[in-house]
């Protein structure tokens, strides 16, 4: 933020230029904002309308707008299972991402030295190949004949006929893997800003490394934890690729149901109501978190 203020200073000297500049900003924003209004905001209005249509209608015969608020109650009642699973799987995956991502982000920020840039590239490198192809690779890794299942059977963690593929474990593992970079990058951004001398000072004052971490590093990286949690949980809870490719019919998440209702069943009001419910939930979560950390830190 400080550098942004820097650029204004020359204008502040001559008030005339400042006043002349104002309209230009609006012109620069116009095309992009128009696109976002038309294809991000207006669609929400359409979705809310769809979620309140009379469920008696159909895709072909058309729907009537009847302010059918009951759609929400019905959708949540009928699909309570997928709704709960979305929150549960998304939540567990987010916690796992935090547990895996924090040491990695910490190592890159403080321990990597000249390898820092290389490690950062390696964090985003999995993104270089397709999400679907990577998830299919997990199908192979977790397969019944695969090495991991064999090893777990040898350890007797899995029973002789136990499997990983087509279980909730595989879905959560896939979600954790796919969204880990979304956790690591904001954590790294927050940790990198911490002055290492603060941590050294804690050590000089006879704080144990663990105490130093809990009292200094962790609180200072709070913005990164919050941003990482949101950026991981939001796409994980809305995802249906992992549930479809790594799970079974008992692991269907909200995304699977919404996609199915739109594309195959053709029940638009129920799909709309489910979609909006997920959005309300996430907006509530974001608002709650933003109260805890100021927006400037998040963005």
């Amino acid at each position: 933020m400080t550098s942004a203020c820097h650029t204004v200073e020359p204008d502040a000297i001559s008030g005339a230029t400042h006043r002349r500049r104002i309209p230009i900003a609006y012109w620069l924003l116009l095309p992009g904002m128009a696109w976002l209004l038309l294809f991000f905001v207006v669609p929400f209005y359409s979705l809310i309308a769809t979620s309140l249509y009379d469920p008696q209608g159909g895709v072909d015969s058309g729907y009537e707008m009847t302010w059918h608020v009951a759609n929400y109650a019905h959708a949540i009642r009928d699909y309570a299972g997928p709704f709960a699973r979305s929150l549960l799987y998304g939540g567990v995956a987010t916690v796992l991402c935090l547990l895996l991502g924090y040491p990695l982000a910490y190592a890159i920020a403080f321990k990597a030295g000249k390898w820092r840039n290389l490690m950062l590239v390696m964090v985003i490198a999995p993104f270089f190949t397709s999400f679907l192809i990577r998830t299919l690779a997990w199908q192979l890794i977790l397969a019944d004949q695969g090495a991991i299942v064999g090893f777990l059977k040898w350890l007797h963690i899995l029973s002789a006929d136990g499997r990983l593929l087509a279980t909730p474990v595989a879905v959560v593992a896939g979600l954790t893997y796919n969204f880990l970079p979304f956790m690591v990058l904001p954590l790294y951004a927050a940790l990198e800003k911490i002055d290492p001398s603060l941590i050294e000072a804690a050590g000089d004052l006879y704080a144990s490394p663990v105490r130093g971490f809990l009292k200094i590093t962790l609180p200072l990286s709070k913005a990164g934890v919050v941003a990482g949690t949101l950026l991981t949980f939001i796409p994980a809870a809305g995802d249906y690729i992992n549930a479809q490719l790594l799970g079974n019919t008992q692991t269907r998440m909200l995304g699977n149901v919404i996609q199915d209702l739109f594309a195959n069943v053709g029940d638009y009001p129920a799909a709309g109501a489910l979609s909006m419910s997920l959005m309300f939930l996430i907006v509530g979560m974001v608002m709650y978190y933003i109260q805890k950390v100021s927006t400037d830190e998040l963005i």
Partner: protein
Amino acid sequence: MNVLRKMLDWIGDRIVLITGILVLVYMFIPIFVVVAMSFNVPPSRNVYQFGTFTWHNWLHVCEPYGMCAALARSMEIGLLATLVATTLGTLMAFALARHRFVGRTVVNLFVFLPMTSPEIVMGSSLLALFVAAGLGGQLGFWTILIAHIMFCLSFVVVTVKARLTGMDSHLEEAAKDLYATEWQTFWRITFPLVFPGILGAALLSFSLSFDDFIITNLNAGTTTTFPMFVWSSAQRSIPMQINVVGTVMFAIALLVVLGGELHRRRTKRQLAK
């Protein structure tokens, strides 16, 4: 005893680094699998498993029916979406980073919203809009393109804005002091300095568009993009050639990133001389 003690100390010192490297290895496991699978003949057509080694998949990439057509379509959509999103997003980034105006905070927050909305919600709301507008029967290339430009925009704005705010404004002030016009200052100083940010944003847009599945799948109608081809073949039998495409994508992206890093180091060294 002493040796063991030393070993434990050595590990204790590096425990965080070791954990970090293990996590990185975990992130790379599927990439290794994808590369290995690109040289694989599965034991039978419907089994996604390691069988025997072959060059066949690399020599006959376009063999699976419809794969290369889907690939070409994804590239076309990716390039067009990148072009539009990068242009519109860069303009917005300049407005947000270089100008003070009423409503700036609101715009900043607004740009942030698409990045925090789940894809399934954005995809279904766009579908609801297209259907309400009577375009339900015309879903395809254009509706996919519209959607891709929409979700790429925010990422462009954020990337270019970060570059602009991190830039040293003294160079531009110096140019103005030396009687450069605003136009000259922009093209000779500002633009070359922001360009790496714009290029990065364009690469990010292309990969986001190229890889998108959830939003595309809802708004594609009967049009098939590459991720949609992978998805539909995952329900039947998976051609090994998709792993060739995955490997090539990975290699190209890696070359671009490493090339950029080398270029950055060379210019830095030249400047130091």
